[in-house]
């Protein structure tokens, strides 16, 4: 099925017809959402992720949901294959050919250190020095050739890299964004001699200046490309064996999806795809709910991810650093990891102050309540001890732990503070919530927005446990808890759009720009995007094209992205739009200074037809009254212990109104409504929490 035949996209009305599966592989679980538009029915599955080969988990998920692959019209897949490869440095042997004098750029970086304080730490370049070879060639900054490409030297370098067993190749020349001729010629020659198709040219992924960032992006791409290629081919084969004969789509970090046939060509774009699909689901859910401005709050076991959505559009960044000194400069949904997760450890520091994090119990040994040998009290343990999580679910099997074990850990912690175990656990939650609220605030401010203008979208296993308390800290008035917080990423797979992003560098004072040339860049980007979407052979409801530019004041270096209403802005319009955007972001007007146009960018988006989210919770399962939806009561610690009602989410009548303090449980997630919070549901079954006043 990995053929390259092309077919125009099918334009349909806005109802998606057919059967679709979104399958997302996370660190612990592989989640599936199956949607049948004809029956408006949904099936869900959650199975363990198979780390050695993710495709087994994918097939397990289909089995668990009882979904016949042969009957599916579309599978959209979110994979962490490349993410894990990068973070664990399980990379393919990759060679680099670069400009004479510059092979060490990938090792020298930008003159940094891992932490602001502390003169220690390590850095390992993606491509080792003996696999970084130089050839005579040189472009100047204006794109003029200074030294011609020495093709003989290039062939010798390629032969050496093949000899050394390189599986992938990077061709990265200085100023290739200004004139890619040498990279293109080198690519041509490489295709003659390289044993496979794993060839990445620096300018092809992102045509922007900055040799380290462009080079690392290309190196990441090359060194995960063979892995991703093999993975999707194997998965496609397995699905094909089961009779699935349609195109397999794979999620990208930009929140769009691309065909498995081409996804590996730009493998770097999948590295941050997991968090991106969750944010896409949030944007989709928020748009349908009439709450288009959201801060997403995805709290898991080891970390918490935060992203911003304005007008149902997730903020996108072109400059994400995956880890220390590993920038990937392709457009990606701007998801910030802010540290604390359920596994964050509480301790009393040398000043006698209670601190939560930054150390984490991770997933191994994990919090005490995992029963996997953890002994240090964590945020999850505090939730368990205080009844916010259901103590009945505590792993009490062989090697398991009891509530007493957890209580002892908090008693020990509390003894250092003059607090009892319960109070110590409550203090841990208070401090953790305050810190997470600060972190969310910083993300919001760094994107130029006041968090109080947004609603918090809570998902991930632990998001809804903390969201209401954090919203209160932030002064955020509303929390949106989607119908299935634990499978948001998989939902993102089904609702995501087709999307292709293009950036080209102009980098001239606005007054010196040839506007016809600028308009021509947009025209070409649109054509490229349409062609790419056409190759994907997926039903789309609507084509959306977004134009933007990145500009700065002359004398400045930091860039501001400015969305454009059309592809043919005049010079004066650009200056005016930029000044307005600058004022909105920084509250400073600088009419004395002229602007420069740095980059022009186009996103070509194929909007998929609508999906009915109401089907996520089976209407037939809902009870008629709130009383019937109540599964019991439980002692939970708020300001003190109190007996509160516990509801089963799937049973809640749609018109139910909830009042905190109370607990709502579902398959893989617990929502805590704090004292003073109230919640109602919308037609899609989202819980909309109105946050009570700050206490």
């Amino acid at each position, binding site marked *: 099925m990995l053929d390259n035949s092309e077919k125009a996209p099918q334009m349909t009305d806005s109802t998606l017809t057919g059967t679709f599966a979104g399958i997302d592989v996370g660190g612990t679980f592989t989640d599936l959402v199956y949607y049948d538009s004809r029956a408006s029915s949904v099936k869900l599955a959650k199975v363990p992720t198979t780390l050695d080969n993710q495709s087994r988990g994918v097939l397990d998920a289909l089995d668990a949901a009882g979904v016949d692959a042969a009957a599916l019209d579309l599978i959209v897949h979110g994979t962490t294959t490349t993410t894990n490869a990068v973070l664990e440095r399980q990379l393919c042997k990759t060679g680099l050919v670069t400009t004479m004098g510059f092979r060490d*750029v990938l090792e020298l970086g930008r003159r940094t250190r891992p932490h602001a304080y502390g003169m220690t730490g390590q*850095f390992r370049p993606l491509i080792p*020095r003996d696999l970084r070879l130089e050839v005579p060639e040189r472009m100047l900054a204006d794109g003029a050739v200074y030294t011609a490409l020495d093709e003989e030297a290039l062939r010798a370098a390629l032969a050496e890299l093949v000899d050394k067993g390189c599986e992938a190749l990077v061709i990265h020349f200085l100023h290739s964004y200004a004139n890619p001729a040498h990279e293109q010629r080198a690519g041509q020659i490489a295709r003659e001699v390289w044993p496979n198709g794993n060839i990445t040219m620096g300018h092809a992924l992102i045509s922007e200046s900055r040799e380290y960032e462009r080079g690392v992006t290309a190196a990441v791409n090359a060194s995960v490309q063979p892995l991703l290629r093999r993975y999707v081919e194997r998965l496609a084969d397995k699905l094909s064996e089961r009779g699935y004969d349609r195109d397999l789509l794979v999620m990208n970090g930009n929140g769009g999806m691309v065909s498995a046939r081409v996804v590996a060509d730009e493998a770097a774009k999948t590295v941050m795809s997991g968090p991106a699909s969750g944010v896409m689901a949030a944007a989709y859910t928020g748009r349908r709910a009439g709450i288009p401005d959201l801060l997403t709050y995805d709290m898991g076991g080891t970390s918490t991810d935060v992203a911003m959505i304005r007008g149902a559009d997730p903020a996108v960044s072109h400059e994400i650093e995956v880890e220390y000194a590993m920038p990937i400069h392709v457009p990606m949904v701007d998801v910030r990891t802010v540290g604390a997760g359920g596994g964050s450890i509480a301790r009393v520091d040398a000043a006698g102050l209670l601190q939560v994090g930054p150390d984490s119990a991770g997933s191994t040994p994990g919090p005490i309540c995992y029963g996997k040998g953890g002994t240090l009290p964590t945020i999850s343990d505090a939730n368990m001890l205080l009844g916010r999580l259901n103590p009945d679910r505590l792993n009490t099997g062989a090697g398991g732990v009891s509530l007493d074990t957890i209580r002892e850990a908090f008693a020990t912690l509390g003894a250092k503070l003059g607090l009892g175990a319960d109070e110590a656990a409550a203090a841990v939650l208070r401090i953790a919530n305050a810190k997470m609220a600060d972190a969310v605030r910083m993300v919001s401010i760094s994107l130029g927005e006041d968090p109080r203008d947004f609603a918090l979208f809570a998902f991930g296993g632990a998001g809804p446990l903390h969201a209401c308390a954090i919203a209160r800290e932030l002064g955020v008035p509303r929390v949106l808890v989607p119908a299935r917080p634990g499978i948001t990423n998989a939902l993102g797979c089904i609702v995501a759009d087709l999307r292709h992003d293009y950036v080209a560098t102009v980098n001239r004072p606005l007054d010196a720009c040839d506007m016809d040339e600028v308009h021509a860049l947009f025209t070409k980007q649109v054509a490229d995007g349409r062609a790419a979407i056409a190759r994907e052979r997926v039903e789309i409801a609507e084509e959306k094209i977004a134009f933007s530019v990145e500009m700065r004041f002359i*004398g400045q270096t930091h860039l501001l992205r400015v969305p454009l209403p059309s592809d043919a802005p005049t010079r004066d319009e650009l200056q005016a739009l930029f000044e307005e955007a600058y004022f909105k972001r920084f509250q400073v007007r600088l009419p004395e200074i002229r602007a420069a146009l740095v980059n022009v960018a186009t996103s070509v988006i194929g909007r998929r037809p609508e999906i009915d989210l109401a089907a996520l919770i089976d209407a037939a399962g809902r009870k008629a009254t709130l009383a019937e939806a109540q599964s019991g009561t439980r002692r939970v610690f708020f300001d003190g212990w109190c007996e509160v009602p516990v509801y089963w989410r799937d049973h809640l009548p749609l018109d139910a109104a909830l009042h905190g303090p109370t607990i709502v449980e579902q398959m893989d997630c617990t929502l805590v409504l704090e004292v003073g919070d109230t919640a109602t549901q919308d037609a899609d079954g989202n819980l909309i929490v109105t946050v009570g006043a700050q206490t």
Partner: protein
Amino acid sequence: MSLDPITLTVIQSGLQQVCDEMDLSFSRAAFSPVIAEANDRSDGIYSAEDGSLIAQGSMGLPVFVGVMQYSTATLISMMAEGKVAAPKPGDIYIVNDPYLGGTHLMDVRFAMPVWRDGKIFCWLSNTGHWPDTGGAVPGGFSASATAVEQEGLRLPPVRLFKGGELDQEIYSIICSNIRVADQRIGDVKAQAAALYVGEARLTRLLDRYGDDTVSAAIAELRVRAADQMRVQIGQIPVGTYRSTAYIDSDGVVNEPLEIKLAVTSDGESLTFDFDGTSPPCQGPMNSVIATTLSSVYLAMRHIFPDVPISAGAFEPLKVIRPEGTFLDARYPRPVSGCAAEVSQRIAEAVFAALIQALPGKVSASPAGSSGNFALGGEVPETGQAYVMYQISGGGYGGYAGGDGISNGCSTIGISKAPPVEIMEQQFPVLYHRYALHEGSGGAGEHRGGFGLDYEVELRAGHARASFVMDHGRFGPQGALGGKDGAKNRVLVTRGGESFVPEHLSKAQDIQLVAGDRVRVCTPGGGGFGDPSKRDPALVAEDVRLGRYTPEEAKALFG
């Protein structure tokens, strides 16, 4: 008033958040790349009584650790003495005088009181590095200045904002004395805006918890921070640890300057004694007292990064005022090198002394230079003047946990070096090489990281090259048997002939024409531990990767 420990932690985080938001706001709104990208700025909260540091932003440039408490303290005492007009609500002071608790002239400080019920509750202050404050050379780093007047405009504390409005008269005096003045308004607005952001956030904190509670928490946090630092110091065996660090020259007189340091631990406090250090120098490698203290603090924070920055944390660190030395320069000694270079040599002295006591926590000496190379000229076609700055990193020292990293940032900075592609876009230069300084890592069981080796050619017109670097005479120190890292090397090729500047790492206004070249090889880091104990496989790996020649490896590691 008794405070529960939880409220204490929450207020501690809250105060930190106020500072972090000021840092973020300043950088985001700042106009000049020095602040916006290089983050050469810092923000903090200071006590109303004596200016002592309450909290400082975690994203501030390390060299500013603690500095502003001295300028704020000076401002408060000058107000008390009637030398400075007392503030009214909405007033913001500006000051850059190095001798009144500062660094060099380019670091311009703003200070604003936070008012509660008509009284000053505390001060907010920030520092931003302005690209120019006048003086003999663009950018202010004159390597051969002999008096502060040659270095730029010196401002005593005056109210630049009165009642929330910019005082146009004072501002016009400033603008008439600095280069590219028309762009400065962007930074002035950003620097003031950051203080307003801090004021708004702090007011929210005070409204929520009450002024008395916050005051009590501040006092308690100070005591606890001091305790926390004492606990850390407790790891250092009682005794005296000595070190020496050298600056190549002051840029005027070609002789090394010597920093002598004796650190004495009594088990809960450290005394830093610079007795025996060189006297004040003629050239700009003098340090002022605030910078000297700050350099000690930042070195300690590199060693104990977990202790929050506050006056309490500094209490157990006693620095004997190094009167009569170049680390306590008085008017009119030139000081432009204090923040960028001297501060790093002071930190090196602290590292070299304390690695003897804390071999598991401290690294051998890092390259420790900002590597400033400035090229000023004119684009021939347009006649437009330019000043290009190439900053560069060097190798870090080996440490108990591994080898030092290569091309690390200066000890006192966190800013990235500009990409070659951007430099070539903006200036008429061509880089022939941007590479690892091979062989530069100091040998050791854990070797030092490698420096940078770049060569740049002037492509058009003529220009003047200036250098403010260091470690040209002695490489960064190895420790515990490790060898020194390679020295900094500057090589100028003019009209086909190559030469090394007289002061090795410092020079001013070397005339160049198109075709002339400058090559700089920055220092490698010092080695940690006996080189003969290095794992032979790691030595072989370095040889295989061409980091050392086989001959070098044999000579260095045996």
